[in-house]
């Protein structure tokens, strides 16, 4: 009996095209759009790449700054040097093919004569940097030039105050000691952009509210003609309800799993290595979604449209609080109103996924899962209590 009704319910749910659209296709469309719009955010704005820079020089003799840039290109991989004339350099900068232009001004005869008298071939002050925006890459280029000019100034100070030590100071430049050793906090670069994907999966799980609501509407005789007919049957009422809820949970879970797989494997969104636990989270999230919808459907005698409005608004608001529309929302609430993050289902699902991906241990993950389980049990028990032993004198 259970499996017969379960099968019918699965077939009936799968034939509801709009429900399937919202549970299956909409998250896929959103995931694709997120990936296209800011999926490369980490790679483009956070992760370091060799910085392309143009150098314009008309000096024919040995150029010390050019040598510095070549060393930064070959030994440290910091910059990617392109030697061009000013016109071409500007075109490259406008087309964003280079991040900046270094240019050495042509020295006048008087300047050359002055330098010859003090024994310096080229001045660090002659070099200028031109950019089109203010960013980390431009700051690094500015820092390279600063370092070059500051080193000149340091040598001047030493020449003035401790001339005997000038050779020792020069050896420091040649040796290039690495004062820093690196310690990393995680294996892969992650940023708060991934929050959008966690929140999207959370929203996908909570899309189950629509199916849960349908289940309640088709179970309460005062809400739909189908339910009225079903109530007439001699079958135990929970014998009708449980297969229906199980079928809806199955469909919702499969839709969410499909979306997660699509994000992970087709869109290459990194959600960590713990795939079975990600699936467990989506199963519990889907259960919360189904019971949420069922509870709203079972409570009160409002019209179907009102209940649907309450469910969708609640689901969207919950997703908004988890960071679906505005990035960093979870963090903001954690600082100002942490209690919201402890009871909001979408935040709990989203943070469970985050904990799996970011933390080494399972303490935070377990906390989120226990909270989700409690919410599911609470909604389920309340929903069942509302429909239990319901009798209708008139509908």
């Amino acid at each position, binding site marked *: 009996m259970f499996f017969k009704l379960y099968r019918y319910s699965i077939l009936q749910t799968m034939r509801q095209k*709009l429900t399937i659209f919202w549970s299956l296709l*909409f998250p896929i469309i959103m995931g694709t*759009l997120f990936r*296209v*719009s*800011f999926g*490369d*955010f980490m790679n*483009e704005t*956070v*992760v*370091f790449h060799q910085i392309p820079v143009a150098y314009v020089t008309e000096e024919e003799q040995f150029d010390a700054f050019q040598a510095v840039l070549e060393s930064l290109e070959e030994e440290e991989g*910091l910059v990617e040097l392109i030697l061009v004339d000013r016109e071409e350099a*500007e075109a490259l*900068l*406008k087309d*964003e093919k280079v991040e900046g232009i270094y240019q050495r001004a042509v020295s006048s005869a008087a300047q050359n004569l002055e330098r010859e008298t003090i024994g310096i071939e080229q001045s660090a002050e002659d*070099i200028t*940097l*031109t*950019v*089109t*925006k*203010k*960013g*980390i*890459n*431009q*700051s*690094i280029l*500015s*820092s390279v*030039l*600063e370092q070059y*000019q*500051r080193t000149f*100034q340091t*040598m001047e*100070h*030493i020449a003035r*105050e*401790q001339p*005997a*030590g000038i050779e*020792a*100071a020069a050896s*420091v430049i040649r040796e290039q*000691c*690495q*004062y*820093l*050793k*690196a*310690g990393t*906090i*995680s294996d892969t670069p*992650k940023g708060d952009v991934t929050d959008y994907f966690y929140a999207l999966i959370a929203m996908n799980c909570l899309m189950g509210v629509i199916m849960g609501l349908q289940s309640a509407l088709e179970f309460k005789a005062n809400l739909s003609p189908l339910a009225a007919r079903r109530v007439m049957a001699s079958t135990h009422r929970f014998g009708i309800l449980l297969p229906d809820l199980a079928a809806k949970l199955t469909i919702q879970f499969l839709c969410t799993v499909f979306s997660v797989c699509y994000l992970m494997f087709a869109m290459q969104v990194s959600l960590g290595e713990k795939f079975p636990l990600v699936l467990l989270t989506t199963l519990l999230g889907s259960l919360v979604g189904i019971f949420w919808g069922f509870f709203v459907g079972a409570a009160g005698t409002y019209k179907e449209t009102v209940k649907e409005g309450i469910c969708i608004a609640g689901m969207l608001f919950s997703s908004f609080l988890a960071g679906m529309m505005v990035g960093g929302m979870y*963090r903001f609430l954690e600082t100002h109103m942490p209690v919201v993050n402890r009871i909001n289902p979408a935040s709990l699902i989203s943070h469970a996924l985050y904990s799996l991906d*970011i*933390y080494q241990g399972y303490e935070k993950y377990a906390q989120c899962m226990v909270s989700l389980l409690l919410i599911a049990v609470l909604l389920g028990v309340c929903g069942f209590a509302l429909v239990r032993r319901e009798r209708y004198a008139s509908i």
Partner: protein
Amino acid sequence: MQVFKVFFKVMGKKKTTMCIYILIYLVISVTISYSMKEHGQEEFSKVSVKIAVENLDQGELGAGLVSYLGQHHQLQELPETRLALQDAMYYQEIDYVLAIPKDFTEKFQTGQQEGILEGTMVPGSRAASFMEQEIQQYLNIVSMYQAAGMEQERALELAAEDMEKEVNVDFLEKSDGQELAGGYYFFQYIPYVFLVLMILVFGSVMKTFQDKDLSARNKCSARSFWEQNVQIILGSVLFTFGVYLLFMGMACLIDFSYLFSLKGLLSAINALVFSICAISVAWFCVQFVHSSAELNVMSNIFSLSFSFLGGVFGSLELMGDSVRQIAKFIPSYWYVIANQEIQKVENLAQAGRVYQSYGLVLVFALAFFSAGLLVNRMKLRTI
């Protein structure tokens, strides 16, 4: 003008939807306009990185280094636990953590300098690379003074003086790096709200008129087919202008000076051109729907996909080359391009690319209108 009156009567049923979207848009655009205003500036300055320093050093060098970093970067409090630190680095509240050991000054003086400090960062982070460069630079200069035989106190004094030296960085064009007006952000998100409103509101009215039984009844009424269509077109034009004027009024309230400048004028024309395109898209969409629920699906698909792919949400710069090529076939892409180009325009003669974008959006409007008309005619033949 019975048809014209009915047009707005049906539209009246959607006033709650309109109010919700207008309110949401107003809140979002005002918030973004004010929060983004802080970022632009006329002169170049280096990016300030958020760093947390754990300084256990008892000597002067550690304090000197922290003091230098504090002048140019934002020193943050070091989180107490590793989990809290992971959270802070994930949310980019801290870009770099520098640990200075307690015997740092002594070891540095005795030449044990290799790997003396530990920096923790997000793997491969460019902010961290920049930070490392800054730290290396400071310590290199101190090391040079020490190697030359100077006392540490004097070395730190001179190093601090040397580190004060900054280079002049120029912007290629005057408009580069300049603050973007609040109006820019207001106009940036216009495509999303126009598409949603036009598809949902105009779509629901047209769906009513295209209902099989109702349209059959209308065809045998005293009003000619031509007269009915003229009234519907008049209603559509009035609705489009109404929505447009409403948003221009909001733009006026948000950034009055921007709207009454050359850039504001070009932005207003851009929005007008897009409103025509949005109503054409809505006309196209309505040919495929049979219920309000389907209209809702259509409005979400078109508004979100046009907004994300067109660079309305997110940024065109973050898109891959292939995606950007595809985005060129979406009208909102050209709207965004025009909005960006408008910010660089000083006089009308410089606005060549802006006019080109207007033209392309109008071509898209024509294409969607024609496609909608074609589908409509094909549907009529099958009835």
